[in-house]
């Protein structure tokens, strides 16, 4: 039962992962600063999940990236692209409509 629940919660979280990441990239962030920013909003994400995801989103054209030299170390910053903003707006709308629909479905349906 517990394992099943964990699996389903994981599925739910995975569905909103990209939306959560895009929502915080209006300003440029590097990998770890983004993890902290998300954690500040109680949105837990593992580094091993986020770092490859950032690269994939950039490859899809949803993010832009730039290398900066900070304290003698190269650091890669990511920011949402114009294409990413359009997708984010559309995705957010879908999510909100889904959320409203689910709230209506589950209203008063205490089992």
């Amino acid at each position, binding site marked *: 039962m517990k394992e099943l629940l964990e*699996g389903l919660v*994981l599925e739910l*979280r*995975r569905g909103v*992962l990209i939306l959560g990441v895009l929502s915080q990239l209006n300003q440029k962030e*590097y*990998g*770890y*600063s983004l993890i*902290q920013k998300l954690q500040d909003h109680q949105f837990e994400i*593992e*580094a*091993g*999940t986020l*770092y*490859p*995801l950032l*690269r*994939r989103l950039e490859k899809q054209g949803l993010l832009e990236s730039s290398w900066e030299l900070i304290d003698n*170390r*190269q*650091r*890669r910053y990511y920011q949402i692209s114009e294409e990413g903003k359009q997708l984010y707006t559309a995705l957010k709308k879908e999510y909100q409509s889904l959320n409203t629909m689910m709230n209506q479905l589950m209203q008063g349906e205490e089992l």
Partner: protein
Amino acid sequence: MNLIQIYVNEVVKYLPRQLKAEVKIELTSQIMDMIEESEGDEKAIQSILEKMGSPKDLADRYLNKEKSLIGPRYYDTYTMIVRIVMFALVLAFSVTFAMKLIFSQEITGWTILEFPLSLFNAAIMGFAYVTIIFALIERNQVKIEDEDVVSKSWSVKDLPKESIELPTHRIENIFEIGFVSILMFIINFQPQIIGIYSAVVNQEESVWTITPILNDATRSVWIIWVNVWLILMLISGVIKSIYRLEAKHRILLSTFFDFLALVMFVFMIATQNIFVDNVAGLIAPGNESFELLVNRGSFTFLVVILTISMFDILRKLIKVLKQST
């Protein structure tokens, strides 16, 4: 070499060439950021790396996990092997074509046309074999894993003491795959090239003739087994070339196919009439001592080949056993 470098090197080992350099710099920088925020001692580093997951799991996340015939992990090895096979086929084609022009008594239009056609057929065959082998490896390797699931059993202690950069290919693998491709071309498309070359002096003019030593009468049966044997050797060569497979896994698999190829070789020699009877008699008719020499010589040669192959298989198995302990 510190733990972070070893970890990052292990991750990029599972990535295709074009991703390696960039991921190496970026991942190192990202791990360093995390360490700066923590106390930075050895225990904190270990904890951070363990949270990142096993190097292979992390590398999987960098790759597009959509199912494809040949995914990004093996794609560059695949294109390299296709290139080797194509090069070997063109080489075999050029050599056999030149030999046919030199030794054939009659050069007809069909002789000229037959060669490019056989090269075309061989190229399709070689391409199909390599693609099927890679598709099967891909199918067995792709694991649809949950994005957030980190291998719980993995620990920093599983990292090697040091991580060395592996070469993209080894010269012996290139030769092995090239040799199998050339043999495939000749056996399937120009078997008459394998024979005894002799010059016959005819009215003060010497004419070269080729006496084929492969048995044409039973060819329809033995050709299947010879192709199975060649495919097994090709599979073994391909597996040896894939450095992104875990070393133990790679050695075990390739040794298994080497063993199968050896069994198939023994089976072919023992049961199939691949060679024409009395090869020695064709070279020197009526010379019994020469016949005995050829028969004993070929038997000794076979025994030597089998012994070397058996020792090679045993050596690899011992290597895997040593790695496991």
